[in-house]
């Protein structure tokens, strides 16, 4: 966390350069919470997925608490507050109540995951007076003191249009942009661009700063800020996850401070079990890994590799239950194997040797991702040895 702050401090200094007047507006910006997300694509199931959905809810509560503590004037959400395809009424009510109880205005720009469709909670729920949903596709200004925040929301899941392409210059004064959009100058790997924008467009169209959502890794620049998802949502999301505390001066300068907020990490680890002869040894190895790599509170997929001792019986689920302490979620996958002298066996003139030769041939001829022959070989040799 300290490293993260050190990394962003120059950026904050750069944005604040020349700023010495009164603060016109202070706001807390977050995005991409994805409440009720399904983690099936991440192969995170059952209790792990439920736990992480609860983590997302907790993150929303922390965001509101942080805004209250920072005494900001406004909370903005850059879209994807929840997932329209999965959101339950209960979760929608939770978001409504949490944001309604914030005690300050909340401005939400619906994103591609939570478009303001007729069946969206944005439309069918009666939101509190302090929560404003930008349920319109054209950019419209919302005035907060001396600052106008121009925003537009997704009214359908897929909006490829560039929102700033035909946008004329706004009225004179302090204008900010709040969007669920893609900065095309730096598209993260695997991200699908929606509503493409460029940093120079933001400046050309007369906006001081763009508060954005869509990319799940936090970053801030002179003209735009992505706070990232408050909690990581998959194994590839290893970047920072934060909220953005934004201060706008009377005469226009914008200061942004990214504050980490996530409590979880997605981590994949491998554990070499060659030479281990008992489960206790393995448990010790897991504990050592947790302490060495600071995986406390993490969501961990641990893959067991190497040669397994013949006397070591592994049940991944039971093992996960035994090693769960200190992790938010721990899952084991057993890719270890019992060692066989394949070369020696394949030279035997026996049924076993013939079988090994055939299966090795078949394994060599099969595709690299086809593990059947190799697995058959392992099973058969294990059976011979038992």
């Amino acid at each position: 966390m300290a490293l993260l702050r050190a990394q962003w401090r120059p950026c904050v200094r750069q944005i604040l350069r020349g700023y010495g007047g009164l603060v016109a507006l202070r706001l807390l910006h977050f995005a991409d919470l994805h409440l009720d997300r399904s983690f099936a694509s991440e192969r995170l199931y059952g209790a792990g997925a439920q736990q992480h959905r609860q983590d997302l809810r907790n993150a929303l509560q922390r965001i509101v608490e942080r805004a209250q503590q920072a005494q900001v004037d406004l909370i903005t959400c850059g879209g994807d507050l929840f997932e329209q395809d999965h959101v339950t009424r209960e979760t929608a009510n939770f978001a409504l109540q949490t944001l309604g109880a914030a005690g300050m205005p909340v401005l939400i720009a619906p994103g591609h995951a939570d478009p303001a469709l007729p069946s969206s909670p944005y439309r069918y729920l009666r939101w509190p007076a302090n929560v404003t949903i930008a349920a319109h596709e054209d950019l419209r200004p919302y005035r907060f003191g001396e600052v106008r925040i121009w925003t537009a929301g997704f009214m359908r899941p897929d909006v490829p249009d560039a929102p700033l392409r035909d946008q004329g210059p706004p009225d004179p004064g302090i204008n900010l942009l709040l969007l669920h959009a893609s900065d095309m100058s730096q598209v993260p790997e695997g991200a699908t661009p929606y509503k493409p924008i460029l940093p120079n467009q933001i400046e050309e169209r007369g906006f001081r700063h763009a508060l954005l959502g869509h990319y799940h890794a936090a970053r801030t620049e002179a003209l735009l800020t992505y706070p990232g998802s408050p909690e990581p949502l998959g194994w590839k999301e290893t970047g920072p996850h934060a909220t953005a505390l934004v201060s706008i001066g009377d005469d226009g300068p914008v200061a942004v401070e990214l504050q980490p907020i996530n409590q979880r990490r997605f981590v994949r680890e491998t554990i070499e079990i060659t030479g281990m002869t008992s489960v206790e040894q393995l448990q010790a190895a897991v504990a050592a890994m947790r302490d060495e790599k600071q995986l406390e509170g993490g969501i961990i997929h641990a893959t067991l590799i190497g040669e397994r001792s013949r006397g070591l019986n592994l049940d991944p689920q039971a093992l996960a239950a035994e090693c769960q302490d200190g992790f938010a979620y721990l899952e084991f996958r057993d890719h270890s194997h019992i060692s066989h002298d394949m070369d020696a066996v394949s030279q035997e003139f026996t049924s076993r040797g013939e079988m090994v030769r055939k299966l090795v041939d078949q394994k060599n001829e099969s595709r690299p991702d086809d593990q059947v022959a190799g697995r058959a070989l392992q099973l058969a040799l294990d059976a011979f040895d038992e």
Partner: protein
Amino acid sequence: MRLSRIQIAGFGTLQGTELRFGPSMNLVVGPNEAGKSTLQEAIVTGLYGLQSADRSRGTAVDRAERWRPWQGGDFGLSLEFELEDGAHLRVERDLESDVVRVIDVESGADLSERFERNGAGASDVGRQLLGISRDIYTNTACISRSEVMRLEDAGSIKEAIVALADSAHPDRTAQRVLDRLRQERGQRIGKPRGRTGPLHELEARLAELERQLGAARQARAAVDELAQKRETVAALTDAELSIVQTLEAAVVSARLEDARRRLERAQALEQAIGEERARQQQDTQFAYFPLERRAEVQQLRSHLRATREAQADFERRATEVVSQVQELEAQRHALEAEALSHETRAQGVDAAALTQEPAVRELLSALTVGDAQAPESHLRAQTAAEEVRRIAERHPGLIGQGLDWPARQMEFQRVYSEWRERHNVAVEARRRAGAELPPRLEQLKHDIARYKEVPEVIKSGQQAEEAMRREEAMAERARGRQRTFLGAMLGGLLLTALAILVAFLALQSGTLVLQGAAFFLLGMGVLSTGIGIWVRGAAVREVDRRLRAKDEARTKRREILQQWGVRSSGELQQALVEHLQKVRYDATRLELDRQATELEERAQAAGRTLRELVGSWGLPQPAPTEEAVEETAQQVETLAQSTLAWNASSQRAQEASRGEAELDQRREALRQQLHSLLDGLGFDRREALAAARDFIASCEAARTVQQLRTRIEQVDAQLQQLRAPGERAQDEATKADEYVRQLTAIYAPAGIAETDMERAAEAWDAAAVRAEAYRASSGRTAELEAQRGGAQADESVSLGELVDDLSQQLSELNRQIDPARAAELASLPLAELERQRDQHRGAKERAQEERARAEELLNDRLSQIGDVATLEEEIATVREQLQELEAEAHAYDLAIDTLEAAAKSVRRAVIPRLKSQLQNQLAPITNGRYRDVRVGDDLALQVKTQDRAFKDVDNLSLGTRSLIYLLERVALARIIGGNAEPPPLLLDEALVHADRRRMRAALDELGRLGQDHQIILFSKDEGLADRAEKAEDWTIIRLPGPAVVAAAPGASPVNGAQRDEIEEEVPSR
């Protein structure tokens, strides 16, 4: 490979030991605990080291601990051996540091680098030279006493051999592994094609989850629809509300306009009433003038003026026509005289007779014409009859009534065309196909005709075979039931027995509970037994019935297929395939011939039809040649043309005869009509024509009289017309006097006393104008008052207030509505606006109700939506598990299939080699009792007895079995070793079961075996050593017993004893 020497620095109990081996047969003899097993392990370790095939570090460590020198010192050994290529190598192993060196004994060169190193980094000398691993070497080439002792169990030889052939391990058979794999598969995945097991349960779970997810998604889709509907209804409500507000504004606007108009009209009426009342005061004196008689006065004045003008006109016209009257009276007298003279010439013909004149004239004319035409008609009839007769005589018997040759010609042309077309096509097809088929193709053609029915036969055969299979399956099921209910029956019997026992106990103890239990058990037992017997009996009968049905199906199949010389439909199908392959080569030629034949047959059929047709018409039948048929066609055409000419002539003759007869009849009828008509008119004479002419002359005179009488009547009418004006002048004077009297009677009451009618009229008109003005003013005043009606005097005030109120309402409404739309509606009348407003107000209320319902339903559905995310994750989990299980199932199946195939393959290869190696060795060790051997597919061994029967090896004596096993093991070791160096065989008390005779034979046999392999036999039997000494090629190595204290290191004895004490090698050569 032949071991020549082993030097043991320290290995287990052996320390500082050096032993030399003979090249072929070696016997290591010594008492228990002398170190025979240690030596055996030392040899193996010299070849392979301490590590085994699985490269398990733990195993190597265990071995090292076990064989570390008991009395301390170096832990190592060296082993010298010769290879088949003459190389003489020494392997030096420092087992403590696991260092291995391979030295060429002759040259002293270090050859260690030539040998590959295993996974642990040690040189794999034994494996590289012998081609087999340490485990396989120990399992095949090393035969222990315990192994031989195990042969006492029946079937153990086969099991041991099978295990060795399968895994080079004494108790790991492929079948056991397969059973284990199948069992594991069943437990972890489920049986193949089974309906139970984890895989099936996962599939069911996945289906259920997918169903739930589908339902959840449907519910979400329904929510989408409902939300869309709610939005639509909300939009409709807003739209209706907007319309209602607009209409409301329009209604208020219209009412405002109406109120303004009413206010203006009320003010205008008040002003008009005042003005009219002022005008009425000026003409009050004419209030009672009889204006109602004004029309009557006008009418009388008009009549009087017209009557006086007519009277003057008639008087003038009477004076003008006096001379014309006199002239017309003279003309009338002359006409009267002329009419009297013509009446005399008319001979009494009156007007009625005159009406008959045109008829008499017409009859006279027609009769004259008919008489003139009669000769010509007669001549025409005679000419036509002559022409008909002449044509019929040209084709005697063929032309006449009912013979329609033109139609026959058309029929002939059709049949002829068809024949010619088919004939030409057939000739062309035959030309293409050639004259006739060669004999081979003739046979093939015959076969084709024969094989046409084969598919049906195959189908019937397959049905019979299917019936056989079905009946067999049903019989098998019935057998299953039979077995099942045998168990039930036995169970029932058991229960009955138990019931009797319990009953006995109950009788002993008198306990009611036991009695009840006994009765219950008895009932259940009897019931189970009865059901078992009954169902089993039914199953037995069903088995019989099914088997009979199967036999019947088999018989039927035989009957169907027997005539084709095959036993199954498959064979027949194969025959059909072969036939079709044969046909395919000559198919084109045969097809052309078949087509040509078919076309020829069709042409012949058409020819037959043609000839039969011609014959049926009485013409000679033509030959089937084009010339003959063409000639017949010409003949038919001639007949058709003659028939057409005959028909035309016959028609003309008939028409001429009919015309002549009709003319005669008409002439006679005209004559009769004329006679009867003239007779009725009084002109009856014998000559009708003359009488008719006389009647016509009288008629003309009568018509002249009529014309003169008409002229006289016209003159009388002219006279009457000229005398009329004088009479009318008198009448008009009388009418004028009457009009004057009536006018005077009207003027007097109105105060007009003038006698001159013109001046009286002027006075009347002036008074009428004033009276009219008074009345008009009164009427307008009344009308205006009526318009004002019963309104209060302060109506204008209230209307002004209303206008102000409505203006205020309108300004408020206009703030909420679209002014353009309101302007559009302003043109509509108020009633229409109110109607539309009420209509839209109803629609708005309905839309609001609909919106409320939609929201309620939406809320209800939203509460029903499941947790889609969890479902998706569960489905992904189950799919992943399913994929893993399926992959695991594939792996198990592949392992099972591959192992089965490998086992078969290996046995196929092993069996002949095993047999050939055993064949020659069997007779010596069995003293010639058994000379032949048979190895089964399952590697079971049978020997041929002297009575030529095969006997299972398990039925032989233990000694024989152990020797046979020994031979089999040695043979198998050689087979498993393949083409590498023949390994030294280490036999630990392997002849423990051999009696003296067999021992000798075995030693002989081992001696023969020693030609190929070096054999080291370990034994504690001194007798065996004695026998070995007597045999040739044996090297005896004696190990001292444990009582003998081992020599100090550095003074190691050779071959187990001190140099000066040992018996040394037995130089048997």
